[in-house]
């Protein structure tokens, strides 16, 4: 029984990081209708920004470094939108062009880091006691608790913005119909700026937490494949769907790794993707869409 609970906690912890990444995909998808595969590059940079904030800048404390990582990653996401997507939007290019542009941006960022920083693995200095927290028979690592807590707070803030503020209302309106939003006086470019900023900041948080938990290297962004699967699982374009899908994926993966073999982790995730696409392409909570690019 204690192993069972342990697995649930581990699953929720990694799932909450997937969620931070997945909502970024979903936000962009909900308005621009394409999967922003450059998101992984932003997450990777977030991991490096956090690392340097901790090690270089006179060693910022954890929360300070997290803020730096979030802010810089947010700016990178906004810059990517301006450079890689806005020109396509102006020409009303089809989704496929956006995806190709996104993949190009992702490869560019990865290689930029390889040539400037180098391909080696780096690790965050230890910032928290490695001693696990014991709750009866269950032991939980501090970093897992921290990851879950920070992710939960970040997602709560995002949900508040989307559900309760005027900007959030405009985001939801744009996700249904940008033309009508435009006719109501919404500056759609500004809404798109905001979703990239929000998604990028969460990517920065996710990148740093993930880097702290594991290691930092230029290909770390491939982890977003998992969050993409989670976003599709939950229903692309739906934020609650992205969160639920991520947590479920985290738990399913952890159980698969724990009870079968850890090498099955990715196999399970990708099998899940294929099963969903066949059985229920709109995901758990997604709106039914024509094409899922």
């Amino acid at each position: 029984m204690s192993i069972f609970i342990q697995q649930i906690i581990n699953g929720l912890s990694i799932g909450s990081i997937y969620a931070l990444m997945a909502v970024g995909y979903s936000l962009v998808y909900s308005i621009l209708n394409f999967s922003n595969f450059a998101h992984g590059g932003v997450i990777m940079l977030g991991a490096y920004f956090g690392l340097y904030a901790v090690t270089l800048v006179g060693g910022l404390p954890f929360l300070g470094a997290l803020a730096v990582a979030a802010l810089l990653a947010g700016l990178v996401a906004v810059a990517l939108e301006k450079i890689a997507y806005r020109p396509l939007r102006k020409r009303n290019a089809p989704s496929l062009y956006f995806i190709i542009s996104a993949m190009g941006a992702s490869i560019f960022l990865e290689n930029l880091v390889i040539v400037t920083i180098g391909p080696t693995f780096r690790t965050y200095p230890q910032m928290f006691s490695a001693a696990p927290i014991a709750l009866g028979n269950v032991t939980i690592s501090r970093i897992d608790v921290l990851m879950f807590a920070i992710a939960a707070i970040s997602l709560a803030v995002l949900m508040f913005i989307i559900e309760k503020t005027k900007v959030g209302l405009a985001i939801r309106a744009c996700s249904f119909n940008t033309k009508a939003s435009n006719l109501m006086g919404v500056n759609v470019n500004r809404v798109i700026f905001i979703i990239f900023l929000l998604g990028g900041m969460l990517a920065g948080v996710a990148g740093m937490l993930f880097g702290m938990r594991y290691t930092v290297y230029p290909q770390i962004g491939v982890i977003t494949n998992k969050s993409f699967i989670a976003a599709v699982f939950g229903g692309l374009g739906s934020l609650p769907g992205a969160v639920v899908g991520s947590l479920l994926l985290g738990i399913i993966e952890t159980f698969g790794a724990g009870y079968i073999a850890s090498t099955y982790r990715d196999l399970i995730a990708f099998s899940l993707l294929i099963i969903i696409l066949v059985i229920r392409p709109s995901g758990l909570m997604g709106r039914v869409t024509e094409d899922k690019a």
Partner: protein
Amino acid sequence: MLKVRNLNVSYGGIHAIRGIDIDVERGEIVTIIGSNGAGKSSLLNAVSGMVRYQGEMEYEGQQLPSQPHNIVKAGICQVPEGRLIFANLTVLENLKMGAYLRNDAKEIERDLERVYSLFPRLAERKKQIAGTLSGGEQQMLAMGRGLMSSPELILLDEPSLGLAPMLITTIFEIISEIKAMGKTILLVEQNAFKALAVADRAYVLEQGIITASGPASELLRDSRIREAYLGRK
């Protein structure tokens, strides 16, 4: 109030509006009648800044802004063809979207009450998801949402499209009431008879060209127009 001169709109090879002039004076209902594909929506979308155009447009003696949100800010709001309500939002949220550019909370609240008294159905359903409304209710919501921007000039694109005859009558009564609120209306319609009956002046648009214009009551008596658009002699 609105002065359109030598307006041209093209989509690739399709020349949808071919050099038309239109004037709308404050307090009027001006209607543009014409059959499907005549270019009516293109005209309204040009005024709203939603399509590229050539020609001059003046609003209140100033050049019309080019960005859609600045046009709304200047006091022109379009209620688009097919309503385009936000089906994923509640009725109240839709109305709030209409007031998106405004910050005067008290005035917004007052306008909300006005919209509810104009469309009591919306008040009853304010918490309901807009996608579940009937076609007539969606049209009312689209008009109410437009009014929430507190526009001086309202562009109505085929408000009667797809509605049952009873509802069409209601919608045209409401158009008169909106005029009585002091708003100016540019109304685009295929339902020429109803549109001419409610309007002060009218233009007939055929394949991107104005082929007739004048006081609505005169066009209503014009035998050529009666034949082409009203189906009677």
